[in-house]
Each structure stands twice: as structure tokens, then as C-alpha cells.
């Protein structure tokens, strides 16, 4: 049975389907990356793998919480090298695909899902991973171009 983890990211509620995740852990020690992307917080080792950690607040244009800690949502295979850093889990609610309103699907969002008297923006991890890969490729390209120009 599919469920959705509701998190608070800035002014909006973001929903994570349990089927898209492989595990939830406390935020580990992070190692910074040499990319000029503000939402890339760094990398972490998890179960023998190098995992890239993305700050959801920065990704969605919100200011990151000042306090350290939080939870790390590691995506399921084949995106298990990506993890999203969130503050906390507000609720775990049952998920029914029939209730998803896909008319608001755009970019990394799969649609809106009702929760009590609120709406939850359901994240589409594959789209997020694709945009992230695109942004990283662009950054690496610009970085390489800058090095060539400098040499």
C-alpha cells in the first residue's frame, strides 16, 4: 500500500511517495562539491555508495533552515545515488493515485494531492533527477569551458 510522506518546504507542503524512496535517515556528515549550484549541499557515504545530497529548500527557492540536522530522503533504485535533505516529516498519509490532480503537473511536480483541507505538491523524483542532471551537466560544461579558457 502506497503512502506519502508530507514535508514542509518553505510555504508549501511537499509530498514524497514511499515507493520513490529507499530509506529515510538522519542527516549525515556531508562533503561539499565543487559545483556552483546552491542546492547541491554535498555528498555522503551511505551503505557503501556515494550519495549526492540536494537541499530541497534551496532547490525550491526557499531559504534553508538555520539549524542543522533534518532528514535525508534517499531515492529508490535507479536513483539511489540521490538524496534530498528536508527538515522533518509533518505527516504520513495514505496515498491513492485516483486522488492526484495532475492538471497542476509541471517540472518536478507530479500534481496536487489533497490532505485534510490543504494541498500537497507531490514530487516527481525522476523529473527532479533529470533537471538536476541537466543542471549538473551544464555546470560541469561551464566549469570545463572556464578552465580551457583560463589555460
Amino acid at each position, binding site marked *: 500500500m502506497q503512502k506519502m*510522506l508530507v514535508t514542509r518546504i518553505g510555504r508549501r507542503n511537499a509530498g514524497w511517495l*514511499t515507493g520513490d524512496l529507499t530509506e*529515510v535517515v*538522519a542527516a549525515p556528515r556531508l562533503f561539499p562539491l565543487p559545483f556552483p549550484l546552491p542546492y547541491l549541499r554535498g555528498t555522503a557515504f551511505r551503505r557503501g555508495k556515494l550519495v549526492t545530497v540536494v537541499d530541497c529548500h534551496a532547490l525550491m527557492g526557499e531559504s534553508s533552515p538555520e539549524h542543522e540536522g533534518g*532528514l535525508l530522503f534517499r531515492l529508490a533504485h535507479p536513483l539511489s545515488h540521490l538524496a534530498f535533505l528536508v527538515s522533518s516529516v509533518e505527516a504520513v498519509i495514505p496515498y491513492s493515485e485516483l486522488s492526484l490532480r495532475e492538471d497542476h503537473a509541471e517540472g518536478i511536480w507530479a500534481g496536487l494531492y489533497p490532505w485534510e483541507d490543504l494541498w500537497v505538491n507531490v514530487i516527481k523524483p525522476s523529473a527532479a533527477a533529470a533537471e538536476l542532471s541537466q543542471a549538473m551537466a551544464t555546470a560541469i560544461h561551464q566549469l570545463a569551458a572556464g578552465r580551457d579558457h583560463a589555460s
Partner: protein
Amino acid sequence: MRVKITEAFVGVVLMVLLFAAWLDIKYPAEDWKNMILKIFFGLLVGLVAGLVSANFLTKKLVALAGVAEKLAQGDLTQEVSVHASDEVGLLARSLASLVRNLREVLGQVKASTGSMAQAVQSLTVSTSQVATATTEVAGNIQGIAKGAEKQAASVERAAEVTVQVASAASAIADKSRVTEEHASTSAERSAEGAEAAGEANAAMDDILRHVEKSVEQVSTFKERATEIHSLVEGISTLSHQTHILALNATIEAARAGDAGRGFAVVAEEVRRLSENTRELASQIARLSQEITGRTQEVVSRMEETHSAARLGQKRTEAVSTALERITASAEETKEAVRAISREAAAQALGTSSLNAIMSEIQGVATDNAAGTQEASAATEETTASMDEISQQAQAVLNESNRLRSLVEKFKL
């Protein structure tokens, strides 16, 4: 001239009579011729003798008349140069004696008028000085009289003040006795206060010990609260981990599909338990923090109480010391007030005696005032007498000057 003829005629008649008498005696029976011749001769002799005698007498008398004329003019410097043993000589000597005596008398009168004028002038000056001095004395006596009146009034007021002082001294004596009683009461109260302060000091010691024990116990509470806070943090950590574990169980249950449905229920219950645990741990943490804060406040209050108790103890000691000093001072005050009471009683007695003396002084001052008034009247009478004497002296001086002017008409 008429005198000379008269004198000559008288001399002739006398000579004739003397000659006729002599003839009658020597020749009593002669005839008439002889008689007439004799008479003629006698007349001739008598005439010659009378003329000679008259001339001789007239010359002396003229000299004496000249002297008398000079004397009548006031010239007493004339000397009578007629020397004879007859009546004219006697007259000349009498006149010379008269001149001498008159010269001597007038000389003495002149000298006396000069001395008298000087004396009268001196008397006038002295009278004036005496009058001035008498006036000054009168003024001084007037001042003395006024002073005596003021003195009498002052003495009367002093007598009144003395009566008031006597009354005040008596009141002071009464108040001193009351104050002495109050001082005794104050000394007793101070001693009681010192004893109470000592007991309060002991009580403050007990309070300090209790407060110190309370601070220790509350500090123990604070330590326990800190331990509870640490335990609650551990529980929160466990709850957080349990929560994460439940989330992972939920994920695993979803992955297992229908087979994991029951496991999902269990995972959900575990997640709720972990959330409840976290909520309770959060409440306990808040309570623990509140307890810690309150305990810190209690510790602060207890420390303040301890400081206040310590300060109170010091002040109680100071109060005890002050009360002991007050007790000593009250004893000294009591003795001093007792002495004041004795002195006030003596003062009251002395002021009573002084009052009697002041009454006597008042009588004397009144008599002095009356005496000075009489003296003032006497000086006024003396001043009037001196004025009269001065006027009389001036009159005498005037008479003396007039007498001297009369005497100065004579040449001495």
C-alpha cells in the same frame, strides 16, 4: 585879698589893743596928748606890726590855700612846705597829715579797686565756669536720673525675669525628674532591646543555616533537573530514531506490496508511538527546562535570601551593639538628668534668693532715681544762684570800675 585885709585889720586891732593895754599898765596918769600920741604911736606900731604880722600870716595861709586848691583839684602829690610853730604851722602839719593820709587811703583804695576788679573778673570767670560745670552736672544728673529710671525699670524687669527664671527652674526640676524616669525606662527598654537583638541574631544564624541547607537541596534539584533534561534528550533522540525507523518500515512495507500491509500497520503504529513519545519527551523537556529555570530562580532567590539573611545578621549585630551603647548612654543620661534635677532645684532656690535681692536692688534703684531727681533740682537751683552771683559780680565789677575811675582822678 579880702581875707588878707581882714586878717591885717584884725592884726592891727589886736596890736592896738595890746599896745594900749601895755600903756595903760605902764603909764596910767599921763595926759591926753601923751595919751593920744601914745595912742597914735601905738596905732602906728600896731599898724606896722599888724601889717608885718598880717603879711607873715597871709603868706603862709596863701601857701596852704594853694596846697588846698591843688588838693581840691585831686592832686595829692603836693607837699606842704609851711614850717611854723604857730597855728598856721599846726594847720600846715594837719593839712600835710591830711594829704598823707588821703594819699595813703586813696592809694590803698586804688590798689584795692584793682585787686577787687581782678577778683571780680576772676569771680565772674569762675562763676561762669561753675555755671557751665553746673549746667554740665545738671545735664549729667539728668542723664543719671534717666539712667536711674531706666535702671529702676530694668531692675523691675530683671525681677520679673528672675521670677520667670525661678518658675522655669522649678519646671526644669519637675521635667528633669520626669526625664530621669523616662531615661530609666529607656535604659530598661534598651537592655530588653539588646537582649531581643541577641535573640534575633541567634534566630538569624538559624535562618542562615536553614537557607544554606535549602540552597544545597535546591542545587541538588537543579542537578537532578539537568540529569532529567539529559535523559529527555536521550528519549527524544530515541524517539527521533524510532520515528525514522517507522518511516523506513513504512517504505519497506510499501515496497513489499500487499504482503507488507500488516507490516505497514505496525510501522504506522510505531511511527505514532514515536511521535507521541517525541511529544511527551518534548513536554518533559519543556517541564524540565521550566523546572531548571524555576530552580535557578529559586537558587537565586535563596542566594539573595542568604545574602539578605547575612546582611540582616550583620545589622542585627550592629543593632545589638547600638542597643548596648544606647543602654550605656541611657544610664549616663539618667545620671546626667539626675544631676540636672539637683542643679535645677538648687537653681530654683538660688533664683528665689536672687528675686529677694532684686527686690532690694529695685528699692535702691527707685531711691537712686528719686535722689537724682532731687540732685537735678538742686543743680538747677545752683545754676540759678550762679547766674545771680554772676550778675552780682558783674554789678560789683561795674561799681569797682566806677570807683577806680573816681580814684584815678587823684594824682598820688
